[in-house]
C-alpha cells in the first residue's frame, strides 16, 4: 500500500532523510521512532506529498506520488504533529469540507459516527478556536479518518491527549488497520507504540537504524525502549546486535 524506495531528502548541505526503504502492507501498523531531529517528520511530509524527495520514489496504493499526485493523495491522510484547524470553522464544517475535498458520498452518516466515536458529538457546532488542545487533536484525527483512506500517516497523534483519549486513539488506529489501512505512526511514546505497532522503524540521523518486528530487532527479552536507547546512543545497530 505504501512503497518507499531509496527515499532521500537534502536541504542545502544537510541530508535529513538518507536512502530510506519501506513497504507497508494493508492492515499493517508501522511505528516510526527516533530522537528529535532524526528526520521522522521530514519523512512523513515527503510521504504526504508536502515535500519533494531529492532522490527515490514513493507510491501510495500503486500510484507514484510525483507522477500521479492527485490519485496518490486521494488514497492517503496525513495528521501533522500540531493540529492546525481553521479557527472560525466548526467541527462539523471541518468534516464537511474534508468530505467534499475527498469526494465522500455518505458524509452525514460517516461524520455522525466519527463524532460519536471520538466523543465530539456535543462539540459539533463549536468553532475550532474554542477547543482545547486534545479536542483539536481529535478533530484533526477525525478529518483524517472520515474518508477511510487506505494509507494513514500520523505524526505524533497522541500528543495532548489524556490517558483515556490515548487509549481511544490507539483503539481507533488499530480498528482502521484491521479494516485494511496501512498505517505509519510516529511517536515518542515508546510503550504505546510497542503495543500498537506490528513493525518498527528506528530512524537516526536520517537513516534507518533498525527495522522489523520487536522480536526481529531485539529478541524476546528486551523492550522497544531498550532497543531504541541502544540504537540511538551513537554505537549503532551493529553494537546492538552483538
Amino acid at each position, binding site marked *: 500500500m505504501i512503497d518507499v524506495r531509496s527515499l532521500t531528502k537534502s536541504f542545502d548541505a544537510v541530508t535529513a532523510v538518507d536512502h530510506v526503504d519501506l513497504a507497508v502492507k494493508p492492515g499493517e501498523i508501522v511505528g516510526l521512532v527516533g530522537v528529535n531531529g532524526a528526520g521522522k517528520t521530514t519523512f512523513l511530509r515527503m510521504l504526504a506529498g508536502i515535500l519533494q524527495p531529492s532522490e527515490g520514489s514513493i507510491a501510495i496504493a500503486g500510484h507514484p506520488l510525483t507522477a500521479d499526485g492527485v490519485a496518490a493523495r486521494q488514497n492517503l491522510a496525513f495528521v501533522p504533529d500540531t493540529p492546525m484547524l481553521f479557527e472560525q470553522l466548526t467541527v462539523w464544517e471541518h468534516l464537511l469540507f474534508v468530505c467534499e475535498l475527498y469526494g465522500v458520498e455518505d458524509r452525514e452518516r460517516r461524520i455522525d*459516527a466519527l463524532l460519536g466515536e471520538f466523543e465530539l458529538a456535543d462539540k459539533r457546532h463549536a468553532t475550532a478556536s474554542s477547543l482545547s488542545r486534545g479536542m483539536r487533536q481529535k478533530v484533526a484525527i477525525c478529518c483524517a479518518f472520515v474518508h477511510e483512506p487506505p494509507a494513514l500517516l500520523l505524526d505524533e497523534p497522541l500528543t495532548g491527549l489524556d490517558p483515556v483519549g490515548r487509549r481511544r486513539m490507539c483503539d481507533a488506529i488499530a480498528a482502521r488497520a484491521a479494516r485494511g489501512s496501512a498505517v505509519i505512526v510516529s511517536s515518542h511514546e515508546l510503550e504505546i507504540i510497542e503495543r500498537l505497532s506490528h513493525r518498527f522503524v528506528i530512524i537516526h540521523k536520517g537513516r534507518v537504524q533498525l527495522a522489523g518486528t520487536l522480536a526481529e530487532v531485539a529478541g524476546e527479552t528486551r523492550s522497544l525502549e531498550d532497543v531504541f536507547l541502544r540504537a540511538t546512543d551513537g554505537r549503532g545497530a551493529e553494537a546492538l546486535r552483538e
Partner: protein
Amino acid sequence: MSAPLPPAPPVGAPVGMPAGALSGAAPLRLLVLLRMRGRVRAFRAGLRRPARVLMLLFAVALVAFLAWNSPRTGRHARDWSQAAVLLPCLLLAFTVLSTWAAARHGVIAFTPEEVHFLFPAPVTSRALLLTHLLTSAGKSFTGGFFFALFLRPPLVSLPWAALGYGGFLFFLALLQVRIDISCMRLQAPARARRARFILAFMLALVAGSSALALQRLGPDADLRVLRYAIWPLLPFVSIICGRAGPPEIMQELLGASLPLDVSILLVLGTVTLLAAGVLSFQGDVREAAHHTSVKLQARIERIRRGRALMDAPKALSGGRVLPMLPRLGGAGVHAWRQLTVLSRSRKPYLLLVVMTLLMGVSMGLAQRGSAQPSALSAAASMLAMLVFVGPMYVQCDFRADYECLPWLRSLPTPPGILAAGQLLASALVLYVLQVLLTGWVFFVLPASNLPWLAVMLVCLPVFNLLQLSVWNGFHLLYPMRMTAKEGSPPGAVQVVRLYLVVIGVFVVLGLATAIAAAFGVLAWFGAGWLGASATLVRLLAAGIAGFTALCLVTAVCIWCVGRIFVRIDPSRDLND
C-alpha cells in the same frame, strides 16, 4: 469503542474525483464560503460586546471621515500638488521592494491550516495557485481601498483611486508569484544570490534612468529625475488619478499622460498575461510554498511577540557578550538583557535609518520651491520621524516580553525599577540614533538655532523615556498582540485598536508636555517677580523648571507602568 464504526469502503478504491488540471477547486470554493460564514458568525458574536461595538462605530466613523473629507478644497489641492511627486516614488519603491522580497523570501504562502488540509489532499498545484491568486486579489483590492482613503488625488472619486491602487497591488502580487515560481527550484544560497542580482538590476535601472534624465534635462531636472524609472507605472498612476487626470506637477514629473481607457486596457492586458503565465506553471509548488509558509509563520510569531521587523535569531551569537551594566537596584540587569537582544538585530535599525532618510529626501523634494529651505525641512522631518515614530518602532521593552510577564513578576525587583530597566534599552538606542542624526542637522541648521539643538539633545533622553513609558502603559492596558492563530497579518480590529491607542498616547504626551511647559512658564514669571531682569536668566530658570517637571512626569509615568505591570492579568484573551 463508544460507537460502531461505519462500514469501510473497499481498500484502495478511488473515491471518485476527476484528476483534471484544477482538481480540488470545488472544495476550495466551499472552504471560502465556510470561512466567510465563520467570519460573519464571529463578527456577530463580537457585536455582543460593548467594547467591540464602540470600536466598530469608531472604525465606521473613521472610514466615513476619510471618504467624505475628500481633497476637493483648494487647500487640499495645494497640499496634494506639493506631495504629488511622492505617489510615483511610492509606487516605484513598492515595486522594487516587492520584486526583491519575492525572489528572496517567496510569496506563495498558505496558512498552517491550509497546509495541513490542502497539501496532502488531492488538489492540483494549479488549483492551489489559483486559490492563492484569488486570495491575493481580495487582499489587493481591500488594500487598494485603504490606500485610496489616505492617498487620494484631488478631485478623484474614491472608486477610481481604489481601483487604481488595487490594480497596482494585484499586478505586484502576480509579478511576485511569477518571480517566486522562477526561483522556487533553487537552493537557499542560490536563491539569495538571485535576489541580490534582481535587486541590483532594479536599482541599476533606477539609477541609470535617473542619470539619463539628469543628463538630458540639465540642471532643472531634480523633479523629473525619476521619469524614466517610473514610466512603466504610468497606466496605474493614470487610473489612480481617474477622470480628473494627474495634477500638473505630476504631469511635469511624468512628462507624458495616458488616456484613462488606454490605461485600463493596458493594466487589464498586463494582469491577464501575468495570470496566464502563473497558471500555466506545470510543476509542484507545495514544497516551496511550505517553506515560505513556515517562514511567514515565524515572522508573524515574531510580530506577535512584539519583535516586529526583527531578524530571525541566529543559531550562534558569535560569542560576543555585552558587558553587564551597573545593577541600579535591578534595572541594569533588565536593560542589559534588552540591549543584548537589540545588539543581535541590526536589520530593523538599518530599516529605520533608511525610512528616516527616505522621509527626509521626500520632504526635501516636496518642499522644493517653497520659502522654507528644503534641507531644513528634510532635517526636521527626519528628526520628527525619529522622535515620534522611533518609540513605536523600537520595541525592546514590555511590548516584546508579553509572554514573559508572569516570570518577570516573580523576580525580586520592585516594579517601578523593573519598568525603568525595561524601558532603558530602547531609550538608549533611540537616543544614539537621534544624536547621530542631530550631527547631520548641525550642518544644515542656521547658527542662531544651535542653542535650541543643544536643549533638544538634553531633553531627548527624558522625552524618549516618557514616550516609551506611555506606549508601554497603553500596551499593558490594551495589548496590541496580533493573532497568530490564523497565520495572517492583523485585521481591521487590530488596526482600529492601534488607531485608538495612538490617539491615547498622543493625548497623554500632550498633557505631560503641557505640564512641563506650565512649570517653565511659571518659573519665567517667578524669576521676573523675584527681580531677575535679564532674559537669559529667566530663560534658564524656565528651562530648568520645565526640564525638572518633565523628569518628574516621566518618573511618575514609569512608576505607573510598574503599577500597571503588577496589576494586569496576562492570561486573559487579548485577541478580542
